[in-house]
């Protein structure tokens, strides 16, 4: 186990090195950074001085070395546009993205797994077929469209809808269901981590972006769990568990669901990485002040330090998540714990 983790760790370092190389290459190939930083009236001498100060005249290998050393110590340079340390800017916006990603990942797991189990167990049920059909929509609609549709429904239509009278007895005002269409709502600062999870307002603001971001993953997880359940329910050990007279709940959730977990963990791990990375679109639709939004602005302004740092941070998340996924396999599947001994005994 320890040897495995060390091996994985070394692989992860290698992956990070390659990503660093790609990030660094951006500085070399996407235009001259000096042009981005200075105005038209800057003299050639001033440009040369700036070039020297930024270390752009050093040999490439030396520049790359500096880049890595700085990155390891958390220094990703200064944003061309904002003239502020990129690391600080990312850290400021990290909580928004992470909270959004975590909530949508939770949403997709907490809804997707039970739906997958349900549709797996009641393969021919009416509700199961409805879930499957609706999940097709979730898979095929692009994220931004779902976001815009949600905004249209919950922020625009409901806000303007007249009150509905129920048999003339009392009236329901649809606007109580209205949700904010942009921003994080009220945030609380917890020692630098600005969280929206502690206020009703902040939580309300999280609803639509999380659904938008998590819907695709939800349908993916549901379909995965369903097909795995169908597979596992056919196995001999499930048949034998039934023959032993175990209760259905123990069979379905104890024996069957646990055996579907390895693929589910794999996909979920990869998807959490994707959620963080593809939060870009959702953040743009909902004007969510996260890293993704900042990254898009950086692309528009060719702010290479931000792009490079963002790239490396996302790669770092992927690497860490994969490392965790690999370790979770060990927790779930005893067959991987090879050090606990092999099959022994005669006959």
């Amino acid at each position, binding site marked *: 186990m320890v040897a495995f983790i060390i091996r994985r760790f070394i692989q992860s370092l290698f992956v990070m090195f390659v990503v660093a190389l790609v990030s660094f290459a951006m500085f070399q190939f996407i235009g001259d950074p000096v042009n981005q930083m200075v105005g038209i009236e800057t003299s050639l001498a001033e440009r040369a001085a700036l070039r020297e100060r930024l270390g752009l005249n050093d040999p490439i290998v030396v520049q790359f070395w500096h880049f890595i050393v700085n990155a390891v110590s958390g220094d990703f340079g200064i944003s061309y546009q904002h003239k502020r340390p990129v690391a600080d800017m990312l850290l400021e916006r990290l909580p928004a993205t992470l909270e959004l990603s975590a909530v949508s990942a939770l949403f997709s797991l907490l809804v997707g797994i039970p739906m997958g189990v349900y549709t797996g167990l009641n393969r021919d049920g009416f509700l199961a077929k409805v879930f499957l059909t609706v999940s097709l929509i979730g898979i095929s609609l692009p994220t931004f469209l779902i976001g815009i549709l949600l905004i249209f429904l919950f922020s625009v239509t409901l806000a303007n809808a007249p009150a509905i009278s129920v048999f003339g007895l009392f009236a329901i005002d649809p606007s109580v269901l209205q949700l904010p269409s942009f921003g994080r709502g009220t945030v609380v600062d917890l020692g630098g981590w600005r969280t929206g999870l502690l206020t009703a307002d902040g939580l309300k603001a999280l609803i639509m972006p999380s659904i938008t971001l998590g819907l695709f993953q939800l349908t993916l997880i549901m379909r995965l769990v369903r097909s795995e359940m169908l597979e596992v329910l056919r196995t001999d050990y499930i048949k034998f568990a039934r023959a032993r*007279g175990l209760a259905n709940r123990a069979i379905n959730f104890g024996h069957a669901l646990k055996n579907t977990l390895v693929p589910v963990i794999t996909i979920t791990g990869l998807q959490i990485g994707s959620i963080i990375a593809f939060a870009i679109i959702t953040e743009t639709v909902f004007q969510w002040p996260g890293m993704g939004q900042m990254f898009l602005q950086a692309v528009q302004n060719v702010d290479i330090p931000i792009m490079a740092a963002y790239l490396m941070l996302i790669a770092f998340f992927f690497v860490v998540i994969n490392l965790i996924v690999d370790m979770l396999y060990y927790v779930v599947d005893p067959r991987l714990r090879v050090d606990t001994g092999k099959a022994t005994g005669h006959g």
Partner: protein
Amino acid sequence: MAMANPLLQVRNLVVEFPTRRGTLTAVDDISFDIAEGEVLGVVGESGAGKSMTGAAVIGLLEPPGRIASGEVLLEGRRIDNLPYEKMRRIRGKEIGAIFQDPLTSLNPLYSIGRQLTETIMTHTDMTPTQARARAVELLAEVGIPAPERRVDQYPHQFSGGMRQRVVIALALCVNPRLIIADEPTTALDVSIQAQIIALLKRLCREHGTAVMLVTHDMGVIAETADRVAVMYAGRIAEIGPVREVIKNAKHPYTHGLMGSIPAIGHDADRLEQIPGSMPRLTDIPPGCAFNPRCLHAFDRCRRDRPELIAVDDGQVSCWLYDTAAGRTTAEAKAIVASRSGTAMERADG
């Protein structure tokens, strides 16, 4: 054969599979009894309906398979029409099961001990500590060395034979009255098979457990069973005491089956074989299902389905033994034992 108080009675059981191209009858109107502590062997080729019969008895037919008619009675109570939850409490507690492949019968993610204790605690009021002690005891009983240590290990840490011992322990853990053993040794090495069969036999004798032993291995049957039922195309061809059926087969199919088993020390140039193969469920011929392959078939065999006829200590479904035809049992047996067709068939031809 009438039994004083049969533990299990199967009466006119019919198992059907609705398919797109019509309904298939996998088990076609079969009846048999199993007495307390008796080992009944059920033999037949694959597709003869023997596993299906076992699954129907324990109420675990794979959908869309279903019991179309007939009854299954355990100690006189009908169990084939029980609601799922009631039948579940009988499974494992009163009727245990052992399946073919010990490598896949155990959940790979749970320790042996956990699988034993959960079964014990499902059917008894034992505390986890008591159940664990019982699990260790059971492992020792099925001959697993160092059970205190082994109880916490996972299935992949056991060899095939050891796993089948664990499966037997699981089937026996709350002392059921009957065990349905579906090909319990087929997936094992030949050297291990004998050990497992001996173990199963010893444990069932000690606990007074009856066994329905489904297999296609006549050797296993000869060694273990008290009585044997020979199945062909979803029907029982012959049922009777094991020695009787093996040494003195009455049904032409059983006779052919016995002739196709190589015997050591017996000099034969070729093994006998039954011409043709068992019909698929979609085209079972009218009359006796075996008639197209039978050397002795005559008109009636192609027209009417034979019922089980009591002959000696057993029963056989073959028109040769029909007393109305005025033939004695000895004559009928002589016809079956002869390798040529009957006089009647030649006359027919």
